[in-house]
Structure formats: C-alpha cells, structure tokens
C-alpha cells in the first residue's frame, strides 16, 4: 500500500477522487459570495446536501448512494449544505474576498470555545496541523441546530489545505 493510500484510508484526501469536487477556476475567481467544495469520496446513503440546496446547484441523485455533483452555474455560496451535511464534507470558498492575498472560507463548526466575530483562529489542514492564522468575519447558524458556519478570512493560497479551525 502506498503512503497516499494509507493516508486516504485513514480519512485524509490525498488526490483528486471521484466525489471530491472543486469549482472551475475561472468562474470561481469572479464569483462573489463563493462556491462550494465537496469532499465526499465514498458512496454512502445520504443526500441532505441535495435536499437542502435552495437553488438546485447540488443536482438530484439517481441513487441515494450517489456522490454529490454540482452545477456551478447555480451555486450561490449560501452554505446551507455546509450546515446540514452530517459528514461535514462541504465548504464554501470566496476568492473575491479582500485583497489579492486573502480569501474567505465558510467552514462548519460544532466545537467549543464559541466562535466570535473578530477573533483569531488557528487554521487546520486535513491532518489537523496548524497551517495559518485566520480571523473570524461572521458566524451564522443556518439550520438553527447549533451547527455553526464560521466565515474566516484566510491566506488565499491555502484554501485547498484549510479544512477546520480551532478557536483559541
């Protein structure tokens, strides 16, 4: 077994996999409010990302085990899927945020301490290593069920690495 496979087998996305979807770069660069990234590389019986999507951007599933497919022309970056996904596998990235070097990520958060606007956070990669500091811009609770969607300003070149935050 290769090291990449080992990592993947323990829950770390190691390369392009079916079900790991990210937006086309040209559309993404100019899309205000951001577009969704989904990391759901396994067929499992689950579809709340589709049923909760208000614009139909998460296209209907033929089979409940299907992995989500995105019609990026319809995604508005609303982050409802981020809040509803039981596997916390959806993230929104807004590349139009701030200056050249910054971007805004909308990440699911179900931990303590409570996230507050303006607070500094550690940005964690898929292995839980701190890769940058970020600043909380806004906190919402789209489903009113205690799963928060935390909007964090992060270094733009790390949007494909950062997958969690730690409020410190």
């Amino acid at each position, binding site marked *: *077994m290769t090291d990449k496979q*080992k990592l993947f*087998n*323990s*829950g*770390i*996305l190691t390369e392009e996999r079916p079900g790991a979807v990210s937006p086309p770069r040209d559309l993404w660069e100019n899309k205000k409010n951001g577009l969704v990234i989904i*990391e*759901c*590389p*396994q067929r*499992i*019986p*689950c*579809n*709340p990302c589709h*049923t*909760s999507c208000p614009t139909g951007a998460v296209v209907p599933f033929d089979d*409940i085990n299907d992995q989500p497919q995105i019609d990026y022309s319809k995604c508005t970056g609303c982050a409802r899927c981020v809040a*509803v*996904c*039981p*596997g*916390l*596998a959806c993230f929104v990235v807004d590349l139009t945020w701030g200056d050249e070097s910054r971007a805004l990520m909308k990440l699911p958060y*179900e*931990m*303590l301490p409570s996230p507050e606007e303006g607070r500094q956070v550690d940005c*964690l*990669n*898929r*292995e*839980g*290593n701190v890769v940058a500091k970020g600043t909380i811009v806004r906190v919402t609770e789209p*489903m009113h*069920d205690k*799963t928060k969607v935390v909007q964090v300003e992060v270094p733009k070149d790390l949007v494909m690495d950062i*997958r*969690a935050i*730690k409020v410190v």
Partner: protein
Amino acid sequence: MRETDVMVIGGGPAGLSAAAEAASFGCDVTLVESDLALGGQLIKQTHKFFGSKDERAGTRGFKISELLLEELSGYGNVKTYTNCTATGYYPEDGVVTCVRAEDEYFKIKPKKIVMATGAQERLIPFPNNHLPGVYGAGAVQTLMNVYGVKPGDKVLMVGAGNIGLIVSYQLIQAGVQVAGIVEAMDKVGGYWVHAAKVRRLGVPIYLRHTIVEAIGEQYVTGAVIQEIDERFQPQGERKSLDVDIICMAVGLSPTCELLWQAGCEMVFVPELCGYVAQRDRNMRTSHKDIWVAGDAAGIEEASSAMVEGRIAGVSTARALGRGTHE
C-alpha cells in the same frame, strides 16, 4: 395476570417505532425498557444522521428520539414502563416475567411480542481489559451525552468503525482529548467523512494497530498499542499512551436471550454480527407470536432499526386482525 395485545420489549428506535405503529392500528401496547429513559441509543447521539429526508437525515439522533416519543404520546393505548427488565419468556404458557426497579416483579401475558432488545458491546481480550476505565463506547456516550459527566481526560479509542469515529468526535465536543484511534484493518471501517472529521482535528488513526495492554492497578492509567501483521499478531515497537480511558468500539452483538428462551429458530449470520432469529420479511420469527426488530435482529443502524420496528408493528397488528387504519 396482566394482559396486552402487543408487548414491545425494548424502548429504543426499533421498539418505539413498533409500539407507535401497533398503537396506530388500535392495539393495546405495553412497552418495557430496562433503562431509566426511553429512546435507547438515540438519546446519546449528538451527530446528524445520514440517509434521506424520510429517514430524518440531517437531524441529530437525540432529536429523532424526541420526535418518536412525541408520536407515541399521541396514543392513549400505550403503556410504557422504564427501569423495567423483561427477565424471562416461558414458552409453555407464553408468559413474560418482568422486574421493575429491583423489587417489583410482575408477569404479563401478551398476545404478540416484538423483541427489540438491542445489542451489547463486544470486548477483545488484552491484559487488564477488566480494569475500570475500559469502557464500551455506548457507556462513554451515556456518561457524557446523557448525564453530562466527563468520562475522563484523555482517551484511546479502539476501533475505527462508525461508532469509534463518531464517539471520538463527541469526546472532543465534550472537552476530552482523544490520544488516538487504533484500527486492526488497513482502512477505517466507518464512513470516510467521519474519519476526515476527526483527522482534521488532529486525532491520529493508527491503521493495522491494536491495543496490547491496559496499564493500571485499580483503574486505567495508560495503554500500550502495537502494529499487527497480516495474521493480526502484534509486531514491532510498542507505543505507550498516557490515557485514563480506553473506549471499546469493536462491535456489538445482538441481545437475543429471550429469543433463545422462546425457542425461536436461531441462525449464525456473520454480517449481522452473531446469532439472530430466523425471520420473514415482516420481521416475524419462527415463533408465530414473536417478532424481532432493530439490533436484536442483527446489527445495523438506527435508521434501519426504525424501519424494522415499523414493519414489525404493522405486522403484529395485522396478525391481530387490525391491519387497516379506520
């Protein structure tokens, strides 16, 4: 002697669903639950369920339990007893004996029975596995998610199936550090997304590793883990972890004593994690008055337990000639 149309043994997702369904057809239902609260394992589940909307996907387990109890409270023909264990089934006269708390004993003669007795935690053999601090994953969930008690400060999780992964995440939510998860196989057994959730919080998952020893005199003060080879034999360097809880998530076995006592035909099905009652598509066992549902019918998930409970509930009502809603 007490009598009832349908007796449901076990008040978890399967039992509550069966009771609601049978009651909806006008059957008089008696449900007994050994725990202090109804809801079974659902009341400990803080994570959101997978599945589709009909199966309440995206809803947390404990909320689903609240919804089931609300549904059940709408029926006047359901009696529930908590802290009440069904201790025996006597095939000669079809009587079930129950003990409520520790000192009230009663007999009941139901026309039909749904056995929704759930499952119990498995253990694996390793030195000192009897020490306090070696707990089943369900027990850890009970402490922290039902009673708000911190099970310990630092945990070793044994098993990276869905339960091990989900409970690790819940431990972090409760403010407990997870030192690592050991998994004997070369990949996580649970959903990949559950593994990703704990990995990105910095929890290591040691694949092809097992616990080889618990350390402690009166209770756990540490654990030793080691890599295993293809024949599951420990090899190489032993790694000591400074933990005060060892959480076992190595699988469940269906709880079937009453089914055995009743003389139901039992079959060994490895996929369902042990001996289970032979049953038809309506969840009826080889005994004409006994149905089975949920983990007692084979280890699956709460979502399937609820479906099986509904099927069993409808089927008992039918067998009593009440198969249609008026």
